[in-house]
C-alpha cells in the first residue's frame, strides 16, 4: 500500500490518471455547450448576422474546474484511498487468539470481542486457521480450525469470574507446529504468565492487546469495632479517583434495594484505599452484597456472608441478689464471651422479645409467667433459639418435674445433683467426647473442664436423642429439643463457674459459636469448613450477575477453604455457599488480592483499544464526485440559459430545506401536546424494533376501536412516545412491549418515567413470551425487562389476586389472555393489612391504581387490527381463539377503565353503608 500522509491507496497506479487532467482541460475548454434548436419565423431577419464575441463559445473556467475536480475525485476514489490503513501482516501461520477472560476483562469485554472479530475477518481473508482459548478455562488440547468456524462461537464467549491460574498447563498443551499468537490481556499479571509468553514466542510472533481502562477491585468487607471496613484496589494507580460503593440488600418487604452508599477516594498514586461504614445492626444484617457503582465486573462486587451478621442476643439473668459479686453473676461469663461478637440486649423478657432477638439466654431463670411463656413459644415457633442454663433456682423449682415443661428439653429430677464437693464421694466428672450426631462433634475435649454440680434429667425414651453433650459417665450435660422452627437448649450447669469450670474454658465459647449464637471469625479457617458439604446458594458470573445454581455440584469444605485462600477457579465458582448452619462468601477478589500490572518483554507489539480506525474513503470520494457532477449539470443548464424556472423552484426548495428545524420541532411538540390532551390518547413506547412498534400501534388502534364501540371512552388514535425525548404527562396509559434490541433508558428518561409512575401513570409491560415461559424459566425479553425495570421506581408486586379491581372494572374477568394465555399477571401488591370483611366478596382495597402491570401474553397482537378493521394476527384456533381474542379485548377495556376510573368499582362496596347512612 502506498501512503500519502494518513491516507493509503490500495491501487496507487490509478493515480497516474491524474496526469491526463491537463489534457482534459484543453479538450473540455474547446467544446461549447450543445445548442438549442428553436423554430422561429423571425429567422429571416437573422440571416447574415454574425456573433460579435467569439470567446463565449468556451466553457467558463469555473465550470471547467468543477468538472476537472469531479474527474480527479473519481480517479482518486478508484485508487482506493484508506484513512489510517492498518498494515496487513501477510501471515500464513495459524493464529492463536488468547483471552485472559477473567473478571478484569468483563467491563470492556465487548471491545475485546470486536477486536477478535476483526482478527477473525482478517484471518478469513488470508485463509489462516485459528484457535481461540480462554486462559481461565480448564486447559484442553488446542485445535486450529477455519476462521469461519470460530465466527459464530466468538460472540458467545464470555469472561469467567476468576483469574487464570493454569498458564503452565496451557503451555504444555500448545501445538508443536509454528503459529502466531494474539493475546488479549486483561492487564493483570498472573502466575506463570511470562512463562507462557516465552513458550508462545518460541512458536511465532506474539502481539499483545491491552485495554487502557483502569481495573477496580472491591475487597471483601470486614467488621471491626462496630463498623464495616471496605477497601478497594485499582490499577493503574495514577490520578485521584472517587468511586461509590453501594451496599445492597433486601428491604423489609424483601425487595433488593440500595441500603447505604459510601465513597472510596483514591489519592494520587495510591493503589488501595479504605472507607468505614457505620450502620445500625438491623440495616447491616440485611446487606448481602457490596458493589462498586457503575462497574460491571465480578471484581467490583463482594458478597457478604455471616461474618457481617451480628446476632441479637437477649441476656436475662435470674435473681441478682448478690450485689457486687461480679464473678458470681450468672451472666458475667456469657457477657464476656458474647459482647465482642454479638449485640446484647438486656432487660425484661417481654421487652426484649419485642426487639426480635435471634437468641434468648435465660441464665438460671426458673419460673416464667404464662404471658412470658406464650410470647416465648410464639417466638420459638418462628425460629428463635432459647438457651437456658441451670442454677440453684432451677434446681429448687418444681418445673418440668412430673411433666415436661414446654421450655425445657427434658424432665428434671427433684433436687440438684452434686457430684463432688466437701460432702460427696465422687470426683468431679469430666466431659465425654462429643458423639457424631452432636453439633459439637470435632471439638477437642479439654481435660481440665470438670463438672461438680448439675441438674439431672429424668430418664425418658427420647433423652438419648436429645443429649448433645454428656459427661464421661453418660450423664447428659447439654440437651436440646426443637419447638416449632426454633429450639430449646439446656446447659445442665450454671453459666458461671459455680457448678463447673466449663464457662472458664475456650470450649464454652466454641460451643456457643457452634450453636450459632455468636458470629464466627471473619476468615473461616480450614477446620471450620472441613468435613462439611457446601452448596452454592448464589453464583455470580464475570458480569456480577447471578447465575443458575442448580447445575453446580456441592463442594467439599477443604476445596472451599483452598479457594478462599487462593481465589475461585473453574471448580469453585465465586458465590455464596451454604453449609450446615452458616454461609461463606467466595468472592472473585479476596482480602489479599493485589493488582499487579502485566509487564511484557521489550519489543513486544502492544496494541491498545484506541487505535485509529481504518476507514475506506472510496465511497466518500465517489459521493463527492457525483455531487460535483450534479452541480455541473445545474451550472451547465444555467450557462446555456435553460434554467430560469428550474432555478426558481430550486431556490424555493433550498429555502424550505434551510428553514430552522428547531421551530418545526417546537411546533410539533406543541401539536403532539394538544392532540394528546384533547382526548384520551393511548400511547406505546417506541422500541427500536419497527415491526414491534407497528404491532403496538395496531394493537392500541384496535383497543381504541373497542373502547369506542363499547364504552363511553372515545380515544384518539394512539401515538408512539419516545421515552428519551417526549413528554409523558399527557398519557394516562403506556404500553411497553419489551424488545431485547431496545437500549436501556438514559438517566433523564428514568427520571421522567419515575415521575410518570409517581404521578399516576400506568405502564403495561409486555414481554410477549408467554408461549415460552409459561412452563417456567425466563426469556431474554424477561431479562431485559429486569434490566429496564431496575432503574424504575416500581413498588412491590404480586400476582394479580382474585379480588383485584382489574377483574371487575368493566367486565367480570378471571383470566387475562392476549395472544397467549396462562401467564401470570403482576400488579402492585395490596397492603398486607387489608382484610376481607365477612360477607364481602372481596377485600377492601381502596388506594391507588397500580402503576405497573407486568405480563407476557402479547396483548397488542391480540388487539391489533389492520386498516380494514380485521384482526392482524391469528389467536388460538377457531371459535376458542375468537373467544380468547374477545377476552383479550375485555382485558384491555378493563385495564383502561382501571386507569381512568381508579378504584371506583372497589369503592362500590361502600354503597350499602352509604345508603344506610342516608336513611334509605
Amino acid at each position: 500500500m502506498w501512503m500519502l500522509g494518513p491516507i493509503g491507496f490500495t491501487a496507487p497506479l490509478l493515480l497516474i490518471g491524474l496526469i491526463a487532467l491537463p489534457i482534459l482541460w484543453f479538450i473540455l475548454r474547446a467544446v461549447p455547450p450543445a445548442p438549442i434548436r428553436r423554430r422561429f419565423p423571425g429567422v429571416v431577419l437573422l440571416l447574415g448576422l454574425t456573433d460579435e464575441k467569439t470567446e463565449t463559445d468556451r466553457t467558463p473556467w469555473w465550470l471547467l474546474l468543477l468538472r476537472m475536480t469531479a474527474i480527479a475525485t473519481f480517479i482518486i476514489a478508484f485508487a482506493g484511498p484508506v484513512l489510517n490503513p492498518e498494515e496487513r501482516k501477510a501471515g500464513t501461520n495459524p493464529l492463536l487468539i488468547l483471552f485472559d477472560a477473567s473478571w478484569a476483562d468483563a467491563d470492556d469485554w465487548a471491545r475485546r470481542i470486536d477486536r477478535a472479530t476483526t482478527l477473525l475477518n482478517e484471518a478469513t481473508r488470508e485463509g489462516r486457521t485459528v484457535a481461540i482459548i480462554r486462559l481461565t478455562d480448564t486447559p484442553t488440547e488446542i485445535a486450529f480450525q477455519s476462521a469461519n468456524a470460530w465466527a459464530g462461537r466468538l460472540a458467545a464467549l464470555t469472561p469467567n469470574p476468576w483469574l487464570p491460574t493454569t498458564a503452565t498447563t496451557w503451555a504444555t498443551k500448545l501445538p508443536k507446529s509454528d503459529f502466531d499468537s494474539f493475546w488479549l490481556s486483561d492487564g493483570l499479571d498472573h502466575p506463570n504468565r511470562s512463562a507462557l509468553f516465552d513458550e508462545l514466542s518460541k512458536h511465532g510472533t506474539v502481539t499483545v492487546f491491552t485495554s487502557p481502562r483502569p481495573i477496580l477491585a472491591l475487597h471483601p468487607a470486614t467488621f471491626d469495632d462496630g463498623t464495616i471496613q471496605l477497601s478497594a484496589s485499582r490499577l493503574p494507580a495514577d490520578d485521584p479517583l472517587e468511586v461509590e460503593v453501594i451496599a445492597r440488600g433486601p428491604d423489609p418487604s424483601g425487595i433488593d434495594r440500595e441500603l447505604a452508599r459510601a465513597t472510596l477516594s483514591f489519592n494520587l498514586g495510591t493503589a488501595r484505599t479504605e472507607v468505614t461504614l457505620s450502620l445500625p445492626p438491623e440495616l447491616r444484617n440485611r446487606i448481602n452484597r457490596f458493589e462498586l457503582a457503575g462497574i460491571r465486573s465480578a471484581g467490583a462486587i463482594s458478597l457478604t456472608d455471616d461474618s457481617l451478621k451480628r446476632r441479637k442476643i437477649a441476656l436475662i439473668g435470674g435473681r441478682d441478689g448478690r450485689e457486687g459479686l461480679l464473678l458470681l453473676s450468672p451472666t458475667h461469663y456469657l457477657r464476656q464471651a458474647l459482647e465482642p461478637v454479638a449485640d446484647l440486649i438486656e432487660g425484661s423478657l417481654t421487652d426484649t422479645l419485642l426487639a426480635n432477638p435471634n437468641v434468648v439466654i435465660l441464665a438460671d431463670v426458673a419460673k416464667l409467667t404464662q404471658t412470658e411463656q406464650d410470647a416465648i413459644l410464639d417466638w420459638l415457633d418462628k425460629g428463635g433459639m432459647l438457651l437456658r442454663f441451670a442454677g440453684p433456682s432451677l434446681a429448687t423449682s418444681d418445673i418440668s418435674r412430673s411433666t415436661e415443661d414446654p421450655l425445657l428439653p427434658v424432665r428434671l429430677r427433684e433436687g440438684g445433683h452434686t457430684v463432688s464437693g466437701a460432702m460427696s464421694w465422687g470426683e468431679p466428672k469430666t466431659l465425654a467426647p462429643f458423639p457424631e450426631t452432636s453439633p459439637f462433634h470435632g471439638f477437642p475435649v479439654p481435660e481440665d473442664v470438670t463438672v461438680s454440680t448439675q441438674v439431672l434429667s429424668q430418664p425418658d425414651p427420647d433423652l438419648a436423642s436429645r443429649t448433645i453433650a454428656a459427661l464421661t459417665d453418660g450423664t447428659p450435660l447439654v440437651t436440646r429439643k426443637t419447638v416449632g422452627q426454633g429450639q430449646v437448649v439446656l446447659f445442665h450447669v450454671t453459666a458461671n463457674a459455680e457448678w463447673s469450670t466449663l464457662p472458664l474454658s475456650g470450649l464454652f465459647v466454641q460451643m456457643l459459636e457452634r450453636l450459632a449464637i455468636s458470629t464466627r471469625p471473619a476468615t473461616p479457617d480450614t477446620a471450620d469448613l472441613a468435613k462439611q458439604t457446601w452448596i452454592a446458594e448464589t453464583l455470580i458470573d464475570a458480569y456480577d450477575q447471578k447465575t443458575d445454581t442448580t447445575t453446580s455440584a456441592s463442594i467439599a469444605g477443604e476445596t472451599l477453604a483452598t479457594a478462599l485462600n487462593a481465589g475461585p477457579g473453574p471448580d469453585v465458582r465465586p458465590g455464596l455457599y451454604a453449609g450446615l448452619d452458616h454461609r461463606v462468601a467466595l468472592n472473585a477478589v479476596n482480602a489479599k488480592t493485589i493488582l499487579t500490572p502485566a509487564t511484557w518483554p521489550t519489543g513486544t507489539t502492544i496494541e491498545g483499544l484506541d487505535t485509529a480506525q481504518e476507514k475506506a474513503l472510496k465511497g466518500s470520494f465517489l459521493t463527492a464526485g457525483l455531487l460535483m457532477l450534479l452541480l455541473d449539470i445545474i451550472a451547465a443548464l444555467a450557462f446555456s440559459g435553460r434554467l430560469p424556472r428550474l432555478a426558481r423552484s430550486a431556490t424555493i426548495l433550498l429555502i424550505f430545506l434551510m428553514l430552522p428545524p428547531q421551530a418545526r420541532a417546537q411546533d410539533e411538540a406543541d401539536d403532539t401536546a394538544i392532540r394528546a390532551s384533547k382526548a384520551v390518547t393511548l400511547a406505546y413506547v417506541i422500541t427500536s424494533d419497527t415491526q414491534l412498534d407497528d404491532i403496538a400501534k395496531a394493537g392500541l388502534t384496535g383497543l381504541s376501536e373497542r373502547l369506542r364501540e363499547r364504552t363511553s371512552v372515545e380515544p384518539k388514535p394512539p401515538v408512539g412516545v419516545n421515552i428519551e425525548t417526549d413528554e409523558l404527562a399527557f398519557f394516562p396509559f403506556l404500553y411497553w412491549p419489551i424488545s431485547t434490541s431496545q437500549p436501556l433508558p438514559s438517566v433523564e428518561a428514568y427520571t421522567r418515567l419515575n415521575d410518570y409512575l409517581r404521578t399516576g401513570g400506568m405502564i403495561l409491560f409486555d414481554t410477549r413470551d408467554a408461549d415460552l415461559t409459561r412452563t417456567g424459566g425466563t426469556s431474554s425479553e424477561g431479562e431485559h425487562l429486569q434490566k429496564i425495570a431496575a432503574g424504575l421506581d416500581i413498588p412491590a408486586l404480586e400476582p394479580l389476586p382474585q379480588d383485584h379491581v382489574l377483574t371487575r372494572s368493566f367486565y367480570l374477568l378471571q383470566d387475562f389472555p392476549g395472544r397467549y394465555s396462562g401467564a401470570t399477571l403482576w400488579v402492585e401488591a395490596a397492603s398486607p393489612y387489608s382484610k376481607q370483611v365477612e360477607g364481602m366478596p372481596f377485600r377492601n382495597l381502596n388506594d391507588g391504581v397500580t402503576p405497573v402491570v407486568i405480563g407476557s401474553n402479547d396483548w397488542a397482537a391480540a388487539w391489533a387490527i389492520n386498516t380494514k378493521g380485521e384482526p392482524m394476527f391469528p389467536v388460538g384456533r377457531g371459535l376458542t381463539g375468537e373467544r380468547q381474542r374477545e377476552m383479550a379485548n375485555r382485558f384491555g377495556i378493563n385495564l383502561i377503565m382501571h386507569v381512568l376510573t381508579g378504584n371506583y368499582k372497589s369503592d362500590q362496596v361502600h354503597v350499602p353503608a352509604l345508603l344506610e347512612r342516608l336513611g334509605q
Partner: protein
Amino acid sequence: MTAIFDLRADAETLGQSLPPLLAEAESLTSTIILGEHGRRRAGQGDEFWQYRPAHTGDSARMIDWRRSARSDTTFVREREWQATQSVTLWVDTSRAMSFASKGTTKADRARLLALATAVLLLRGGERVGLSGYDMPPRSGKAQLLSLTQALTTLNTDVDYGTPDTTGINDHGRCLFLSDFLGDLTGVEKALAHASDHGAKGVLMQVLDPTEEQFPFNGRTIFESMRGSLSHETLRASDLRARYLDRLAERKDRLQTLTRAVGWHFTTHNTGEAPLPALLCLFHAIEGGR
C-alpha cells in the same frame, strides 16, 4: 365543422360591439349595383336626395306631381345614388403564421380579425370576398358562411406567404393580413397591381411577442417553420439589438410602400387583445380619418 362555427362565433362576438361599417364609396361610377349607403349624389337608390326642376329629356313619369302642385314649375324627385363597396380580404396562410410562442398563433389571430371585419362589412351591406380562392365579393349571410369555411380550411405549405391580388375589384377595398416577414418584392408587386386597379386598402402586420422582443440567449439554432432557413448563433442575446433594428427597418419599409400607394399600414401583436386591432382596421377601411 365545430371549428368553423367557433371561428364564426368568435368573429360575431367581436363584431357586435361596433356600428355597421360603412365603407367609403369613392368611385360611384364604376359600380352599378346599389348598396345601402348613398354616394351623396343623385342616382339610383331608395333614399330621397333632392327635388330639381324638370328639364327637357325628363319623362313625364319622373315628375313628382305632389311637389309640382305646390308651385308653378314641375319638379323631379331625385333619389340618392346608393352603391355597395366590395372588399377583398387576403389572409396569409403560410407556415410562418402558424407560430406561437404561447397561446394563439398568428394565423388564428389574422383569421379572426379578417372574419370580424367581414362580419361588420356584411352587416353593413357590403360585399366581401377572399382573394385567390375563387370567392368574388358577395353580400349576405351565405357569403359569411363560405368565407368562414374557406378561412378555417386553407393552408399553404410555404414558409412565407405573398399577397394574392387575383379577384380584386376595380376601385374596391383590400385587407392584407400577414406577418410580412417574407420577401417584400411580392408585397410591392401586389400593391402595384392593386393600385393599378384603383383599389385602396390596409396592410396589417400580425406578429408574435417573441418576434417583437427576441428574448433569447445562449447557443441557439433558429429555424424557420418548415426548416428551409436556419441560423446558428453562440450567443443569441448579442443578436437582439440587431434583430430589433432589422424588424423596425422592415416595418418602416412597409410603411413607406403603403403610403406611396395611399394605403394604410398597421401592426398587431398576438399578445394584445384583438379588439383594438379591429377598431384600427375599421378606421382604416372607413377611410383613415
